[in-house]
């Protein structure tokens, strides 16, 4: 399975990945609509939150809206989702996101767009 990976040593905290992600999937530049979030702690250390495709959310979903596709990527089938946000609360990595503009949550599906645009080469798509 191919998943996104992140190297905090290389990351410069420019947040371009967040912009690229929200622009790709929501056609807006809004970090709150990004499926990757870069965090800067008080000591200056950078970290990233995004889905590693562990699938814990699939078992929690009451409707079967969360599923693994042919490439084992965990995806949300919007038609089946009732917006309960169980997956948001039960993601061990806090990598399932929601936004006031829609009822359906969203997550990284390792599309790789952010990798393309990352100026520091801190992101990559890797085999897991």
């Amino acid at each position, binding site marked *: 399975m191919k998943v996104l990976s992140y190297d905090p040593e290389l990351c410069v905290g420019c947040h371009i990945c967040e912009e690229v992600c929200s622009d790709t999937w929501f056609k807006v530049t809004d970090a709150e609509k990004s499926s990757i979030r870069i965090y800067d702690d008080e000591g200056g250390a950078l970290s990233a939150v995004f889905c590693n495709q562990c699938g814990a959310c699939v*078992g*929690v*979903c*009451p*409707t*079967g809206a969360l599923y693994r596709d042919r490439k084992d990527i965990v995806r949300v089938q919007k038609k089946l*989702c*009732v*917006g*309960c*946000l*169980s997956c*948001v*609360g*039960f993601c061990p990595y806090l990598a399932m996101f*929601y936004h*006031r503009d829609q*009822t*359906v949550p969203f997550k990284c599906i390792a599309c790789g767009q952010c990798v393309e645009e990352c100026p520091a080469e801190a992101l990559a798509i890797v085999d897991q």
Partner: protein
Amino acid sequence: MSDKTQTVRRVLAEYTYEAPPVERGYAGQTLYVNLSNNTINSQPVTDVMKEKFIGGRGFGLWLLWHGVKDNTRWNDPENEIVISSGPCGGITQYPGSGKSLVVSISPLTNVVIDSNVGGHFGPLLKFAGWDAIEVQGRAEKDVIVVIDGPSGRVTIEEAPDVPVDTHLLGHWLLEQMAEKEEERYFMSSVSAGPGAEHTRIGCLNFSLYDRKRKALRFKQAGRGGIGTVFRDKHIKALVVKSSPVQGDSNHPADGARIARVGAKMHKEIHDYDDQQCRMRHRGTAYLVQIMDDYDLLPVHNFRFGSHPDAPRINGDVWEKRFTQGLPDGCWYGCTLGCAHTVEGYTIRTGPYKGQQVLVDGPEYETIAGVGSNCGIFVPDDVLEINFYCDAYGIDTISFGTLTAFLMECYEAGVLDREKTGGLELRFGNGAAAIELLHLMGRGEGFGKIAGLGIHRMKEYFVKAFGAAPRFLQDIGMEAKGLEYSEYVSKESLAQQGGYGLTNKGPQHDEAWLIFMDQVSNLLPTFEAKAEALHYFPMWRTWFGLCGFCKLPWNDIVPPDNAKTAEPAKVPEHVQNYVELFSGVTGREITKEDIIAMSEAVYNFQRVFNVRLGYGRRDHDDIPYRSMGPVTVEEYESRAERYDKQLRETLGLDPAKMSTPDKVAALRQHREEQYEKLKDAVYKRRGWTNDAVPTLETLKRLGIDFPEVVAVVKRYL
């Protein structure tokens, strides 16, 4: 639809409508169905209804009040069954937000019963365009009422070939009315069963389609015999279909606010449930061991509070039997997920012997009621009874409590094999309890007598068998005609009030104060107990006005809850509910408003009882078994505890007293205490000493409607 459908379904009445959009939690109309004259119509939801009665149980009471007369009894055609969820019912983001409340005049108590239930019916009813359904009248022959939101059609139909047993009927409805898998997601039914027809303890089964198991499941509105009213009206089923549920189907005023609180709560459950109650793994069965440890688990008709065999039916056992790892909420988004099932259970008796079935539950009340209280510590016996109670439409709580009563009667010589028609109803005899249930299902033999409920059995045993009335009164665990739910209240005066000083009868959903009172000693005075018996019944009433389940309030708590000023109230969760109600309805409320909302509805219900000829001080009496030891054996089993009370509280010397004298002295004291509790509670609630709400109270709560005042004035 198939040819088969057309041959067995005959439409008696049809009503067409266009489902209105739900706005801020309300569809804005209620559905009225009269089965005597086959009329169907729509009634508007008024501002008074929303302002004062909120929804759910409040709507039920308001509609029922206007539908019945002062002398209406349960089996009069004008009695109604009203089902309503509430403005917050059907939100998917917060655990426990899909409850329905059912209201009717009860065949057990002759007053209003309210029973809360999970399953999908209430929310789907709203999304099909109706805040409540109000069914009145009695059909000539068995009917099914179908509410088809997407088609905008309500029908009353005859379906004579359809089975009555809930699990068969539910599947038949699903196959006939939801051909495609996706249609099953948004369809739900309400049904009872043959046991509801033959007894007064009938329950209603509310279905939900479990998408992960691809199976139909049922939750029960168990209390007070509403299933009996349902079958008396010749209803086989109510069916609702709605358009697909979405995260904003309630069109809340502020969806983001609800999402924020909901996501936070899911995370809290994710982080702490495993360390706290393990509801996600064992549901309410976790309570069995705790109750046993604290001497609160009913054993042998509430004589005792623990038993060495309790570990054979405790949460550890059920965790192994329940399927693990599935989202077992009874409505979407309930991550507390207590609605577990035992799959692949092979039935051992009765008409379905040999079949493999899915058993919904058992939950704590069932395990304690038909298990420990009857001395039955065999999980498969509990499952067998659980399955057949649901299939026959019988309340497991009333069944458990009345069977325990019968077993004590049998062992005390009030009953024998001849009187029971051959049933050896001794404690621990699971086979006899199961056979009794089948007799109830068929309406035969001793099953017909047992199905009357404890209140009426007491009278019958006195008349028919010459039994001693006082003994039966002492050990028969019913009040107002309703069988007790499954907690031993002997050592908690506050909980005696929690059971007795109620509107509907001894069901702990009004107040569960045992730990606060008995274990933590937080309610040392009558005033403190009275305050708790004001606050908690009002707080708990509110869940049933809105469509919420009580369990996510305090069966999971934030990790720092113990450090708050009032841990028993779970302040952080109270604030969650403030946010949710405000977020859905757009009506900004405070936590104090919650209590005020409930107080209006609760007092209205009290006046309703008064109107029907009940609801006064004497009707709040409780059997002595719920207050203290009735028998010498019972006293001696906890002699150290009781002797200590005689010494320290009453200044007596137990060493110089016989056990019967000690039983009598303790009894006199405890009965006096209960009367003093009544005085304190009535005063706190703003009632007269005869338990009737005063005019000032009605005015303060804004429910001084002329017809309400007229009822109260007769007793002032």
